[in-house]
């Protein structure tokens, strides 16, 4: 199945683009997607390891064991607050 991924600051700079498409197996969990991102975009791997993203499927926060569905939109947001 295919999912759409939108990367926030600063992840998107490491990946080189804001929006990604990823083909993954049916029943994949969020953790599987993050692993796939690390493999597909090695430059992004460092940022993901340094600060675990807050992830939203559509508008709802997802956990690493959340199962994703075909066509869903995943948002990876940097965990930061305070300005």
């Amino acid at each position: 199945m295919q999912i759409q991924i939108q990367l926030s600051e600063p992840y998107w700079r490491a990946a080189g683009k804001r929006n990604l498409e990823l083909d993954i197996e049916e029943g994949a969990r969020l953790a599987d997607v993050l692993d796939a991102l690390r493999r597909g975009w090695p430059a992004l791997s460092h940022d993901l390891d340094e600060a675990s993203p807050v992830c939203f499927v559509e508008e709802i926060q997802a956990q690493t064991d959340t199962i994703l569905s075909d066509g869903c939109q995943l948002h990876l947001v940097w965990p930061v607050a305070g300005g």
Partner: protein
Amino acid sequence: MDFQVRTAIVNLTTSEVEFTHTPDVLVRAYLGGRGLNMAYLRHYLCRAGDPRAVDPLGPDNPLIIGAGMLTGTIAPNAARFNISARSPESGILGDSNCGGFFAAAMRKAGFDRLIILGRAERPSYLLLVDHTIHIVEADGLWGMRVIEAQDQLKGLHGPGTVSAVIGPAGERQVRMAAVMTGKKNAAGRGGMGAVMGSKNLKAVVARGGEAIAVAQHDTLRALRLKQQAELKASKVVQVLGRVGTPLLYEVSNRLGAIRTRNSQDNYFEDTLNAEEIEKYVDKMLACTSCVVHCRHQNKLGGEGPEYSTIGLLGANLGIAPTDQVIALNNLVNDLGLDASSTGTILGWAMELYQREIIDNAVTGGPLVWGDYERVRNLIEDIAYRHGFGNVLAESTQAARYFPDTAKDYLIAVKGLPQSDPHDVRYLKGFALGIAVASRGADHLRNRPTLEVFKLPDEVRVSIYGRANDPDPTGYKDKGLIVAWSDDIYAVTDCLGLCKFVTQGFNSPHLLGYEHMSDLIAAATGLEYTPESLREVGRRVIDTERLINASLGLSRADDTLPKRYFDEPMPARNTKGHHVDRVQFQMMLDDYYAERGWDADGRVCAERVDEIDAVVAMLDAPNSR
């Protein structure tokens, strides 16, 4: 080297200037910056007999400008100073913290703290140069906007001068007027610009001469290099240096926590994301000794915008076009208005109009979400006190001109509009923080930002001192983390450091008490342990609590806007969240217990005696 805090007391009514040193006991107890300002503020308010009788816009209100203990040295990000007085906006403790280059110049001109009393007969400014202070007539400057006034002063006194000025808003004593230095750096909170205007004081101009003496230069230099390397290795420092605080907009917006249309909604357009702002940025700028470089020079002639401004002059007013929000940012800065209060008060007025609580007869015309031209004109009218702008210039006190129900829609605590564009209904520690913050609804006093990090238990224990519930949406242990944040941010403000390099503000790492102790020893020769330094933070918070109590505040004032209790958030991940009134009171109990206050939020008698014994040192002759 004996470290001394060089203090000048300027009486604008009599044109007398007195030079003194702050007593060592006070310096040990409060360090500098915000802490010493609070000691002086308590002194002057109590000296008046009943502090409530001191008119915030009258000559008896002291205006205290104090540099941090490390400000102007080579310590990382040591640029900051505090301006304090009784606030004309909230009526309580007024205190505003600011970066830029002014405070370093003030110290290099020979002054660590100015206490400005009285009222000048004519518009005036202070010129600080080579350990002297001149009171100079400012007739030609009165009426100028912020940038023009600074340019004029630089032309008069040379390229090495740095000014802190008020704009038209401060001159007209608009209650949310800021003191500005540079194009954007603002001592914005609480109307310190109005206090300055009430004294007929247009500017304080400093021409730095001598380098600031430090106890151990080589040690301080080594610490600088070591800490700078650590800071620059931090991802948050790198990202702030690349795009600045606008990076936070997308985080809050995606979560569903960006204050939108006066918090009726909680998400907005992506046009205000950092990458959109970046299209209008020429380059990134820094303050004195900064290693972060988070401030934008924008292509529209100003600096900024910060996340707070983007949220409150953008989403909160329903204005989406990036260039319009940047233009509004530049406008409020040049007029000398606090962007946070201005955006919050405008959003409040727009909702009152939407609900037909006020109408055209009051507003002078339609006031609808997203109307950029109307907002732009109204901001000008606030600064110049024209028409409906004259009503909004009263900030939260404008409520007295509206029907009683208007207060239900005001996003403010203790009379101060909320600073941060983040809707706090989801994060309960943040909610507690703005409820108890000493200057009113403000995130820079104690925001426990580590709530959003999924930190391992052992890390949380190492930071906060004991195990605590990591759920940011729950109510448990929030007193612990807010009190911890209170203390370290207070110490940061005493030292003149920036919170962007402070442990706990954006990261569990960065500079903590140990780093700060090392810097103090190298710069001043004074020894502190991490524990004794945290005790300074506790003392500052207790002193502020005493000041507010003397102005009539109690537990009942530690509260939140009605909407945050009674209206669930409408959309996205935060949908349904609000602050439960009963659980909120339990958080307050926890917080008071952490602070050692009684159930009514009062500082214990023993501590009051200790603080007042220290502050009483200012009663001694030549020690004010």
